[in-house]
């Protein structure tokens, strides 16, 4: 029992990342009808926003401390981040420590700008082209973004620590009446899950309860009629693209402490997220979220030793096997509707 709970918990954080990326993909697909293979790159850019802010805050100046010497006997050079110089050591240190949560604020305008530029500059020209062309051009864009990041940040993963307050793990087992230390779960992963839940809830609430969201949903259902009613639906869809980019970016920012960002993390997640979208059903937002969590949890169950000893290697392929089975049993995906992407 405790092992099962542990695996469900373990699946939640990866599932949250899948769900957030798949949500953005589905938003773009549902509104603009574009298959965006560069969405993983947006996730990666988000993670590198966190890295950049961390590096930026750690920019330091050197002072010579004459009272202390290093091992060669020279006066010790002390590196002090500018932030600590400006705000004093305590506040400065706290700001650096909290760089990842701060990066959320830092990344939102960046991601929205990136989304706008992408949509206006490139994707706009591909609305009427076949899906194959959209896949190919965004695939090319993903390569370009990935290589640019590689060029400036190098090929190695960059550690981006979470705030000290969230280091360590929470003992779920003790709380729920199991033996202590059987179910422990890192604080940051809990936060990631809560964060993802808030974002997903926010996006749904935005679409459900605001006038803007209502217009967008109407546009998703019948773009032409909404256009005939005198509403500039293209402008709203562009904003939705920016929103989807921001969702992917935030997923990336918060994921940075869980998995040190490297330049190909976007591609790694993209393939899986596409599988998630297709399993959930193209164009279905609840489907994307449900499939994201489902596949995340499935993946963590498959990596249990008990299961691996029955079917070796299942942890590597379980998502793909699940996708194949689901697509063959329910060709439109779990919650897919008739008439979406049928051609």
């Amino acid at each position, binding site marked *: 029992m405790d092992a099962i709970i542990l695996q469900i918990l373990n699946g939640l954080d990866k599932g949250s990342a899948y769900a957030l990326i798949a949500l953005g993909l589905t938003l773009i697909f549902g509104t603009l009808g574009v298959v965006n293979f560069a969405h993983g790159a947006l996730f990666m850019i988000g993670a590198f926003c966190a890295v950049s802010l961390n590096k930026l805050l750690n920019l330091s100046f050197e002072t010579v401390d004459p009272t202390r010497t290093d091992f060669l006997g020279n006066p010790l050079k002390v590196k002090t981040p500018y932030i600590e110089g400006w705000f004093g050591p305590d506040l400065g240190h706290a700001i650096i420590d909290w760089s990842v949560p701060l990066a959320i604020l830092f990344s939102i305008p960046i991601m929205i700008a990136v989304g706008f530029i992408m949509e206006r500059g490139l994707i706009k020209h591909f609305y009427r082209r076949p899906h194959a062309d959209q896949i*190919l051009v965004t695939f090319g864009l993903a390569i370009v973004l*990935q290589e640019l990041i590689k060029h400036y940040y190098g090929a190695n993963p960059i550690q981006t620590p979470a705030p000290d307050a969230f280091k360590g793990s929470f003992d779920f087992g003790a709380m729920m009446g199991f033996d202590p230390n059987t179910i422990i779960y890192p604080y940051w992963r809990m936060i990631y899950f809560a964060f993802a839940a808030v974002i997903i809830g926010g996006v749904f609430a935005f679409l459900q309860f605001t006038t803007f969201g209502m217009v967008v949903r109407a546009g998703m259902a019948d773009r032409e009629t909404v256009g005939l009613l005198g509403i500039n639906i293209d402008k709203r869809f562009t904003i939705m693209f920016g929103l989807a980019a921001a969702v992917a970016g935030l997923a990336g920012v918060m994921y940075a402490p869980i998995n040190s960002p490297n330049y190909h993390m976007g591609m790694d997640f993209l393939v899986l997220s596409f599988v998630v979208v297709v399993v959930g059903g193209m164009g279905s937002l609840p489907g994307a979220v449900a499939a994201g969590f489902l596949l995340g949890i499935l993946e963590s169950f498959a990596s249990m030793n008990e299961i691996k000893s029955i079917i070796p290697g299942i942890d590597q392929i379980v998502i793909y096997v699940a996708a194949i089975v689901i697509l063959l049993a329910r060709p439109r995906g779990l919650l897919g509707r008739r008439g979406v992407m*049928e051609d």
Partner: protein
Amino acid sequence: MLGLNKKDFTLLLIVAALVVFAPFILNPFPADSAMAQFNAGYPDLMQRFVIFGIFAIGFNILFGLTGYLSFGHAAFLGVGSYSAVWMFKLLSMNIVPAIILSVIVSGLFAMLIGYISLRRTGIYFSILTLAFAEMSFRLAYSVLTPITNGETGLQLTLDDPRILGETATATGSIPVTNFFGIEMRATEVMNVGGWSFQFNNGYYMCAIVLLLAFYLAIRIFRSPFGMMLRAVKSNQQRMNYTGLNTKPYTLAAFVISGMYAGLAGGLMASMDPLAGAERMQWTASGEVVLMTILGGAGTLIGPVLGAGFIKYFENIFSKINEQVLHSWFHALPDGIENAVVWVLEHFVGSGWHLTLGLLFMLVVTFLPGGLVEGGQRLGRLLRRKDAEKKTATQSTPAE
């Protein structure tokens, strides 16, 4: 001639001439000149041109004719490589059984994957093939290690059985791949003035296979079967409404293109007997898509051009580094020189993939018909008459 009409036969002759004289054509600069780094006439690279040409021709039979975009074709290439290397390990170093086995195995593998994937169309098909390819890649890396040798890759060793051949040569080394005694590795060098032209047995073996593959592709394109595939591309629904089951045709196209990929994989292993899982990764699948698109999907010559173009520039661009750039722009004033070099160095050396991505975007955006369409447009622009001749020699796109 050979069951082809005049213009197709001319095309075949042009391709034949290009591959036969490739060691000369690709070697335009003397060996010791500064331009020698742009030469591509050495065996390893020429083999890659031809092998990826075969791969792209096969991919084009599926994508160009039926419009089904497979994102997992590299899996068949990988399976082909593994089968060929196993044949070298178990049977003999003759490449014929190895290539035959790799074509058969990849054909069977393609039949299995195709049977399942082709139940869906459009993006669902792309994702299904992608999922299968990733699955094969991951399995090859993890559980199937006894067959694939995991991360190290499958290699020949001195204690392989090789029932029909010899386990080790008299000198105690691993025997080399051969075609009934003709060693694939052997190279004749012809020195003429400052030029040195290399004629490699392996390259010519691949070239012959390419010509056969190309001939077969022309026959498929011009056959009623090819016509049926084009009909699937233009309107599958209408085909179904007329009471025709398109599944056998698309499946056949899928299997044929999988066999082409297996053939390419087998040849790759025959030239250099090792096989690794990274050949099956989805970026490798993306590469063949790119070659086909860049050359011109649905045209006969396009995929070969695209494969050659990408492999050539991959090789040349990777070699250029900062020093080379500085020596080129030496004449410019220092400030401008540094600026130019700073901009360009992003695109060369390890930045080749950046160039590739940009190229991909530009081609898809502005030239959906690829190089072939570009050539045709250029021809039309230059002279109306000339353009007509050009479309006559170059095949028209599938639609």
